[in-house]
Structure formats: structure tokens, C-alpha cells
């Protein structure tokens, strides 16, 4: 494969590697979510919380849920792209990356 093509292939491979690395760090707090939320559930169940305090907490949970849903959606998009690539179907660009033309000044100069 030409150097230029390997360069383009490594862009994808290293970007996915970055996601993998960051997700492996994220995995640690993510694993804590269910037990921590169960504990929060116990606090709710005690019934000693004021309406105002409960509302503050529910707002935070709603916000977190929306962010997780967004991330799940974005990850799903990535998976779909990978699947279509592995099935050799055409890809559509969805993210704003550093444009090849900007980054690849080296190829233009050769």
C-alpha cells in the first residue's frame, strides 16, 4: 500500500485507538454507576427528602441521562460506520475532522 494510503488508514486506526483508551478509563466510573444509583434509590425510598431537594437531584439525573443517550447515539453511529466499512459499503463523513487537505501539506509538497 502507498505511504499516503497507509497514512489515511492510520488516521482511522489511531482515532479508534484514542476512543478505546479513553473508554477504558471511563469504564471505571461507569461501572460505579449502578451501585451508586441503587444507593441513591435507598435515599429516595427513605421518604425523608424535601420536594425541593428531590427536584434538584432529579434534574441532575435527567441531564446525565440525556448526555448518556447522546453518547450512546454517537457511539452507535461509529459502530454503523465500521459495520458498513467491513461490509464494504460506502461511508458518509459525519464529523468535523482536520481536513485532509490541511493536514496533508506534506503530500502536496512532494
Amino acid at each position: 500500500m502507498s505511504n499516503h494510503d497507509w497514512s489515511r488508514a492510520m488516521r482511522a486506526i489511531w482515532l479508534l485507538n484514542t476512543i478505546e483508551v479513553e473508554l477504558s478509563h471511563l469504564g471505571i466510573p461507569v461501572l460505579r454507576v449502578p451501585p451508586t444509583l441503587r444507593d441513591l434509590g435507598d435515599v429516595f425510598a427513605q421518604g425523608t427528602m424535601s420536594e425541593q431537594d428531590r427536584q434538584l437531584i432529579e434534574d441532575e439525573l435527567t441531564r446525565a441521562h440525556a448526555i448518556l443517550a447522546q453518547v450512546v447515539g454517537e457511539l452507535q453511529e461509529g459502530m454503523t460506520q465500521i459495520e458498513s466499512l467491513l461490509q464494504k459499503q460506502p461511508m458518509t463523513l459525519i464529523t468535523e475532522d482536520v481536513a485532509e487537505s490541511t493536514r496533508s501539506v506534506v503530500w502536496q509538497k512532494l
Partner: protein
Amino acid sequence: MAEIMTAREAVERYIKTGTQVCWGGFSYTRRPFTITREVIRQRDRIQHHFCTMNGGASVEEALAANDLVSRMETTYVGLEGIQPVAYSIRRRIQDGSIPLFEDYSNYGYAARTIAGRFGWPFAPMMAELGSDIPEYDTFGKAGLRGKNADGSWIDPRIPPKKFAVIDDPFDGWGLRPHAFDGGDTTANKTNAIDRTRESDKYTGNKGVKVLLVPPVLPEVTVIRAQRVAIDGTVRMEGILGPDAEQAMCAKVLIVECEQIVPSDELRATPELNHLPAHITTAIVEQPFGGYPSAVPNYYDYDWDWFVSYGRLNRKSKEEVKEWWTKHVVDTKDDWDYLQRIVGMNRLFELRATPGYGYRADLKRPM
């Protein structure tokens, strides 16, 4: 403004005969081999350089094997578990083909980079006293320190003194374990600071002595980072070593990287970044270019390469240099080297295991 360029261009522009180059990374990790190999490719033009760094010695071994080192200023020239003393460097210091070598300890050199990083005229450090390290000043003996009759620096890259010793103006008050107020919480328990006051060595006065070192201000520093933003912001992952300090001390900074990324990717968390955009001069993108050293989270070191090179470099100087000619000089660039000489298969065999940052099941036979 950080400029993206090829390795060839970066070396042509910034590394000349005799340039003082500070090499980043540490031993087996994140060594800037893309630029190193390009310097070797251009060895006929460059001929030799002034090599300085705190984290030897794989890159320096390669450069010495190609007769590219005329001066060295450093702390350690070994390859540790695989070869206790880097043979190409060792034989040349012994036979004189590396004529000038200035010894420091890791902390002494690191203190110099702290002075350079903070813009201080010098930095204090409390080691090296009592040893022979301050007793031998190679550059001084060679007449390289200080000024000419006309007031110009003999060599502006070399400080006028290797070190200085002063009497602590604060009488040792700050030293730990702090025993004056009834004890300290440090792990260290021995405290003989009072006994050191009785000596008048180094300054001729009794009291607590402090060693001062001048900054190191390299003409060029070269480092390899995992990611560099297109604006020059640098983020390293895993072991940091002396890189941020050595980079900040330099006049010109060349950063080779695995990926050039959009600015937002690194600027989203500035507290995780190590170098600001404004100090980066040149960016060179070369995936796998740290080979054969390790780049944490990406790939491991090539153990087999180091073991077989450790046997090879004991052959005659000519044979070793011929090996570098065949394996590096005769390649067009690092992509050519990685594909043709190393093979992409081998590179992917070194891929880091998730959660470890290195290849957890890497076979390491002697």
C-alpha cells in the same frame, strides 16, 4: 505558529553540523526515532552534533553508531536490562572518537531543565556534593566556558560554570525532615543537617551548602508525543520523563507524533496538556515512528530488535555502520523504513493491550 512538515524538511531546516540537540523520551519509551532516523539518513551533510538529554540511550546509541556525536552532555549511557552500557557510545568515549563528554546525575540535569523551564538564572539542588561529579568539568578544561577577550561567549550554548556552591541564606530551615518544630511527617527519618553545618567545605564557611546549576538551553529539542493539535498544543500519555521541561528550555521545538488532531480535541481539557501551542516550531506526523521504542497506549517496544541489536553493535564499527546504511540510510523515509524494513505485521504485533498501555503478552526471550 507551529508548522506541519516532513521529517526531512524539519531536519534540513533545524539540524546542522554541530547543532546542540536535546533528545526527548526516556530510554525505551517515546523516543523520537523518526527524526533520529532522518538525521542518520542525512549523516553525510550533518557529520556530527552536540548531543544532550536526560533520558538515554537508545537514540544516542544509534547516532553514535553513525559517528554523529562529537559532544555529549548527559547522565546515563546505558540500555539497562538489555545492554548495561550502550556499546557504540562506550567504545567511542574510550577510543576518543567522542572527544568531549560532560557527566551529570539525573537530578542535576533535571534541575537544569527546571531552571530552563521557569526561566530562572539557576536552580538549587542538594545532591552531587560529596561526589566527583562536580570535580570534573570537561567543557571547562576544554576551554569552552566563559568569554573571549572581545566579550563574546566562547560557546554561547555552554554556561560559564558547570555549577556553583553557596551558603544557604536560610540556614537550612527548609530542608526535610523538618526537625526544628518537634518532628515531620515525611517517610525519611534521618536528619543530620546540624552536623553538616560544622563543615566549611566548598565555600570556606561553616553552614549549610547548596549546589546551584545553570539552565540547559538547547538550540533544538526533539520529542515524540502521542497527539499534537494542529495549533501545536502537545499532550503526552503515560510516562512523561523529562520531555516537557526539555521542550520548554529549547529555542526550537520539533514534535513528532502519532496523530495530528483538531485543536478542540486537546483544548477541551487544557489541564491534561503538557506544552502550549506557542512553543512548538515544527510538527511531524508519523504513525509508529517511535519504533523500536514504546509509545504508551499505542504500541510496545520491540524487545527482539533491542536484543539482536545488542549483539550486533559489538561487531566492528564499520559493520555496525553498514547495518545502519542498509536498514535506514537506504530507505526513502520512515514509511519506507516501517513498511519495507520492519513490516506492518510486526508493528501491529506490538499494539498496546487495552487497560495496560503496553502489550501485556509480549514475549521477551533473552
